[in-house]
């Protein structure tokens, strides 16, 4: 152990109750002014590791280690009272999403001042002065005004800055940041990362915990990859990302979609045991199958879905109206993927609902195969609804939790739900469901399970199967991979690519993640505050953006080095 180590961990083991330990022997050290990133997928044990360093793994957690030292002093087996003296003073914690990580009922100034109240003898006036200094230091403009506000009244970036201010109020030598940028828009994410880097450069040791390799590569000096409770690979950031040694690391690096051309596989074969047998011929040339067909030119020019000057506004709580979508136009060509990208609040999801005719249009028109779609009555639209499928981000919320996968899919196939167990299990129905599941890479064994019993990736596959059940020509995907781990995201993106080729589907793909959109799209629409700021072919927009905002977004996308 070097003398400068702020944090030294040897063979950390954490378990809950009688079940098998979730952290199974983790060792690392962290020096002042250094940033170590622990990267892993959900359930790998990275958050538990981070919380153990504050003695906050939980009331029923068993924390053991050969060594656990903060600032050269062992913190193994400390009482809660002894821990409380250290928390905030020797180590600060920044969590994801300050909307709920700061008390939503209290002004941020009070939250930040709490650290000072607990650990110093400063009077109220001195604390108030220090809070303003801190807010200024984390780059919050107008601190005097903002200090009175609660987390709900601030923007995502502002409140994340406030949360960081609360964590560094006492200048702790170690700052632990657990997914500090995960809920943020890409430009804000870049700003918060810059702030963390600045904190690091001021001499604080930063332990960054994230699922996103590309994000941490921006500021981490070293990366430790965590998998199933173990650190499987640790090294300098560039080395781990450019020349990963461990197979799991390679899989994670390969799964990052940014800068990978359209049609490239993201998931390595070994990581998708449930996937159907790939159609080798279609993949071998890795170009679009439509391009090789003789009538490709004719097919490509057909507009399947057209949005003409869409507008929609919402009523604010104070009664005034806010335009969510303002004069948005684009057209989707057959067999193509149109990506809609923008930050939160840019009107992407509202646009999706307008395309699905689930919200009334105030102005404009949506046409499906050149025929009126949004302007006809719901009664006439209903029989054509099967031709437009939809996939949502929150697949759990979009299923009835009491229905089994079999019931969900039978319902989506457009037949009356068989009332008896035996009818549901009729060979005919079963065959249809099995075919559908096979297409999305799931085995028939999931049929009796309920959505809660499935993993996130399996759920999104069921969501895709449900969207495919009506034999649609168009799929509207609203953030279909945003809540998934990067390797699962890679599998789902590959799956969407497969079904698109096989069924010659046209896709609207909505995402806040430019890397994903760049990977999947033929054409791109960039939205901001309800308006289209730029549109064009993906190749053009992503290499030579014309609008300043697109360029700014693009610059903020986290990328892997090399």
């Amino acid at each position: 152990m070097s003398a400068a180590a702020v944090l030294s961990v040897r063979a950390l083991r954490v378990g809950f109750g009688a079940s098998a330990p979730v952290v199974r022997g983790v060792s690392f050290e962290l020096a002042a002014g250094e940033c170590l990133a622990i990267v892993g997928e959900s359930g790998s044990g990275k958050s538990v590791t981070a919380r153990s360093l504050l003695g906050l793994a939980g009331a029923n957690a068993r924390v053991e280690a050969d060594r656990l030292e903060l600032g050269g002093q062992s913190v193994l087996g400390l009482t809660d009272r002894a821990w409380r003296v250290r928390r905030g003073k020797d180590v600060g914690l920044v969590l994801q999403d300050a909307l709920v990580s700061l008390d939503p009922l209290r002004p941020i100034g009070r939250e930040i001042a709490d650290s000072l109240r607990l650990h110093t003898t400063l009077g109220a006036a001195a604390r108030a002065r220090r809070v303003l200094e801190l807010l200024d230091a984390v780059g919050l403009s107008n601190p005097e005004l903002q200090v009175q506000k609660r987390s709900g009244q601030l923007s995502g970036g502002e409140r994340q800055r406030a949360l960081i201010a609360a964590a560094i109020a006492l200048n702790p030598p170690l700052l632990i940041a657990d997914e500090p940028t995960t809920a943020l828009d890409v430009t804000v994410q870049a700003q918060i990362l810059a702030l963390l880097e600045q904190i690091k450069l001021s001499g604080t040791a930063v332990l960054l915990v994230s699922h996103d390799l590309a994000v941490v590569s921006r500021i981490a000096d070293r990366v430790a990859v965590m998998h199933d409770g173990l650190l499987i690979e640790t090294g300098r950031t560039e080395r781990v990302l450019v020349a990963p040694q461990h197979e799991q690391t390679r899989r994670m690096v390969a799964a990052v979609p940014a800068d990978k051309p359209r049609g490239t596989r993201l998931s390595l074969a070994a990581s998708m045991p449930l996937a159907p047998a790939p159609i080798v011929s279609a993949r071998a040339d890795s170009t679009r199958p439509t391009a090789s067909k003789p009538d490709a030119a004719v097919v490509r020019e057909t507009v399947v879905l057209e949005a003409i000057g869409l507008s929609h506004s919402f009523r604010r709580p104070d009664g005034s109206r806010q335009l969510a979508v303002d004069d948005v136009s684009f057209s989707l060509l057959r067999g193509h993927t149109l990506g809609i990208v923008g930050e939160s609040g840019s009107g992407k999801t509202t646009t999706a609902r307008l395309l699905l005719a689930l919200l009334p249009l105030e102005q404009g028109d949506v046409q499906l195969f050149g025929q009126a779609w949004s302007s006809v009555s719901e009664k006439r639209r209903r029989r054509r609804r099967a031709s437009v499928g939809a996939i949502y981000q929150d697949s759990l919320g979009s299923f009835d939790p009491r229905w089994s996968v079999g019931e969900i899919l039978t319902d989506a196939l457009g037949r009356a739900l068989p009332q008896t167990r035996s009818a549901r299990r009729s060979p005919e129905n079963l065959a249809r469901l099995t075919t559908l599941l096979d297409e999305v890479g799931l085995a028939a064994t999931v049929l009796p399970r309920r959505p809660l019993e499935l993993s996130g990736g399996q759920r999104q596959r069921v969501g895709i199967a449900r969207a495919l059940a009506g034999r649609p020509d168009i799929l509207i995907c609203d953030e279909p991979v945003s809540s998934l781990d990067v390797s699962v995201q890679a599998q789902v993106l590959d799956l969407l690519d497969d079904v698109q080729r096989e069924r010659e589907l046209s896709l609207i793909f909505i995402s806040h993640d430019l890397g994903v959109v760049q990977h999947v799209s033929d054409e791109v629409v960039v939205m901001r505050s309800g308006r289209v700021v730029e549109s064009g072919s993906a190749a053009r927009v992503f290499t030579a953006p014309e609008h300043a905002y697109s360029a700014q977004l693009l610059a903020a996308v986290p990328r892997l080095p090399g």
Partner: protein
Amino acid sequence: MVEPVTPANRRRDGLARPVFRALGRLGARLAGAIFVLWAVASITFFAVRLIPGDPAQAVLGGPGSQASPEALAAVSAEYGFDQPVFTQYLTQLGRLATGDLGRSYSLNMDVGPLVLDQLGGTLLLAVLALSLAWVIALALATWSTRGGLVAARVGSSLEIVAAALPHFWLATSLIVVFSIWIGVLPPISTDSLAGLVLPVLTLAVPLAGFLGQIMRESLLIALESPFVLSARARGESERGVRWVHALRHASLPAISLSGWAFGSLISGAVVVETIFARPGLGRTLLNAVTLRDVPVVIGVVMIVAVAYILMTLLTDAVSRLVDPRLRLS
């Protein structure tokens, strides 16, 4: 068709709106209160009419009084019972609108002073019971979320049992235990403090069980929240986490329900005041219903409705105080 939003009408929306909105909210509240009072008066009026028998008989001392047909006719004419029911209804509404609650048939005095005289005792009972219920619920919720698994089980069982206790059973059991066996508290409620204990307990315990269940659940949710983790990471103590953060969140749903709880306490007062022979609105109401004393019934119900409306306004105000997010900026 929705009005398209143009820059011009967006600007118009922005200026004079706050004042209009505040006035509009007040107006809506007032209109709602008037509607509730009207509905209460109407439903009570017709409900009492549904009781079989001649109201004139009630004025003359009930069915046992053997009044002469002449006397009955005279009373009918005086009170308007010979008019069509709808005319009587409108007359009654007109009187209520001017604040006149009428005269009691059986007691031959004005309903207004009579009801107001009884109001204080019942209000005291209800307010004390609500406060005690809050104290018990808070204590139970705090203890059961803190003492581990056994405390959680015991706490939730106690809450369920308490919430399920009927008032009349609890009242008689309390009398048997404290007045007859131990003999420390009077079975009949007097104005003394000791006389208040059993009635207040009877009303408070079931309500405490109910509020406790809600508080414990919201307290558990709050304690699991990321902001509580953040506070702990700052070095906040267990007590600090609860007092500064969690209890405030946990009290919100219970505050909203307190308006409703107050209404249920007043209806509970009917049982409690009768069992403990305590003067108050509940007993007045029960007597009036037995004697078919329509003006008193309507008077009591109207006063209770007004109290309920005021209590709802109060809980709204308290909610806004505790949860600043509810205040419109």
